């Protein structure tokens, strides 16, 4: 027996998953309370489209600001920490130790400080995404080939030129990877915090409908979050590969793999 091509197998699995989602509750294998059918989920999503799109707007607004904090701050701080040897030696081990702390335990502090509105979500998701972005940027800056800078100096580049013409382009792949990571984590941070304590947003809809056992509405919100995070990931990937063609094409798969082994920070909780 010949196995189908991997891409076909993947598509087949997706279709099977959607079919199961429809058929398992319909046939009564699982009660609708545990898993409402795909069609009923989509139906309530359409019926409540105004509620859901309003919630999506709140969530997106929070994600955008959190991303701004995490990516802006994380890339800047990562560049400084990665670029200055002394600072790096001093701080990087501290940050990797702190990385072990589940940041979610700080969320009650943020709600106490900033209230249950968007501010606490932005602050929490911003910080949640900040550290991984900073660590990966610092690691990326550090791996810039010193020969690149030596060559630039030999060609008479001034310090400013070394930064603008060599260090910045050489770190673009890291910066884009940081943006992809930071955005994904900001989405997660916002959703988690909305689920925990909130008065608006998609995460809030998840929790609200869970407490009243309205499963189709829980799954409608869940579906939106799924689509949101996968869409973001695909967009970020596409943007990245367009911007830094030379990076993805020029590196051996082995190198890319080592990188992902070292930084499994993109795994979401």
């Amino acid at each position: 027996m010949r196995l189908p091509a991997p891409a076909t197998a993947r598509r087949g699995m997706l279709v099977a998953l959607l079919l199961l989602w429809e058929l398992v509750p319909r046939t009564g294998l699982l009660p609708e309370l545990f898993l409402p059918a795909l069609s009923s989920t989509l139906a309530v999503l359409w019926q409540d489209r105004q509620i859901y799109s309003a919630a999506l707007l709140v969530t997106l607004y929070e994600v955008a600001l959190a991303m701004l904090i995490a990516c802006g701050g994380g890339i800047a701080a990562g560049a400084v920490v990665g670029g200055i040897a002394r600072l790096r030696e001093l701080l990087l081990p501290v940050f990797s130790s702190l990385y072990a702390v589940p940041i979610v335990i700080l969320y009650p502090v943020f709600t106490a400080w900033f209230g249950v509105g968007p501010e606490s979500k932005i602050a929490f998701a911003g910080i949640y995404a900040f550290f991984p972005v900073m660590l990966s940027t610092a690691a990326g800056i550090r791996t810039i080939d010193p020969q690149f800078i030596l060559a630039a100096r030999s060609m008479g580049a001034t310090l400013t030129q070394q930064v603008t013409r060599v260090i910045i382009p050489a770190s673009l792949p890291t910066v884009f990877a940081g943006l992809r990571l930071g955005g994904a984590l900001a989405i997660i941070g916002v959703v988690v915090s909305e689920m925990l304590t909130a008065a608006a947003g998609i995460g809030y809809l998840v929790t609200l409908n869970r407490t009243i056992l309205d499963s189709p509405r829980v799954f409608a919100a869940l579906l939106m979050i799924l689509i949101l995070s996968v869409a973001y990931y695909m967009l970020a990937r596409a943007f990245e590969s367009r911007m830094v063609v030379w990076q993805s094409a020029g590196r051996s798969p082995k190198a890319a793999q080592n990188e992902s082994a070292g930084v499994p920070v993109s795994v979401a909780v």
Partner: protein
Amino acid sequence: MKILLARLALLALVLAAWELMPRHEIVNPLLLPPLSDVLAMLGELLQRPQVHLAIGVTAAEVAVAFLIAVPLGAALGVLIAENEYLGEVFKPVLFYVFSIPKSIFLPMFILVFGITFAQKVAYAAFTTTFVVMLSASAAVESVKQDYLLVARSYGATRMQILLRVYVPSMMPLLLEALRISMIFNFTAVMIAEMYASRAGIGHLIAGWGENFQMRQLFAGIIVLATVAILFNETVRYFEARCSTWRT
């Protein structure tokens, strides 16, 4: 040595700021109680049986979830690393799966298990399995093909290759995998407890936060952070010892 002193100085600076800024009302002591008050509260909390119980519950959840997730995730990870076809099918999917917030599935676990010990364990194990899977497949793939070839050319059996090539050369990565999985496992248990529960430290700190009991809240955070950092550093110490040969 010097760098260690510098780090200690930095820590002292942060702690001093935490103590002095609320004391002199540079920041509102209601929002950030001085460190000494928090530590006093911490001492008091650690006497309470209610807190002991919560620590016990959380520890049990963390441990059981980890014991489920590690073998499961490792088996799946090895499978996609070793089986070329499965790897090709699932690896691209995994990257998407990893970018999805697992916490959105918490309501499902609550619907199925209720708000129970089993629900926390199941959710944390579910989350952690993905992390273990990723790290385990990375660890398997990190073994250099050359090592395997050499071993095979000397006539090593499958078992010998496993025990004398795979295990030692994967050791540092395995420890790292365990360490990182534990970070995510701990986080998952915390989220589950904070989200909906009747016991555990996560439940306590969420309650303290809602009731504006900032001293208790910060005391709880200190305990959790200390435990997490201590665990992490211990494993890192062994990692470093196992990987002196790595260049």
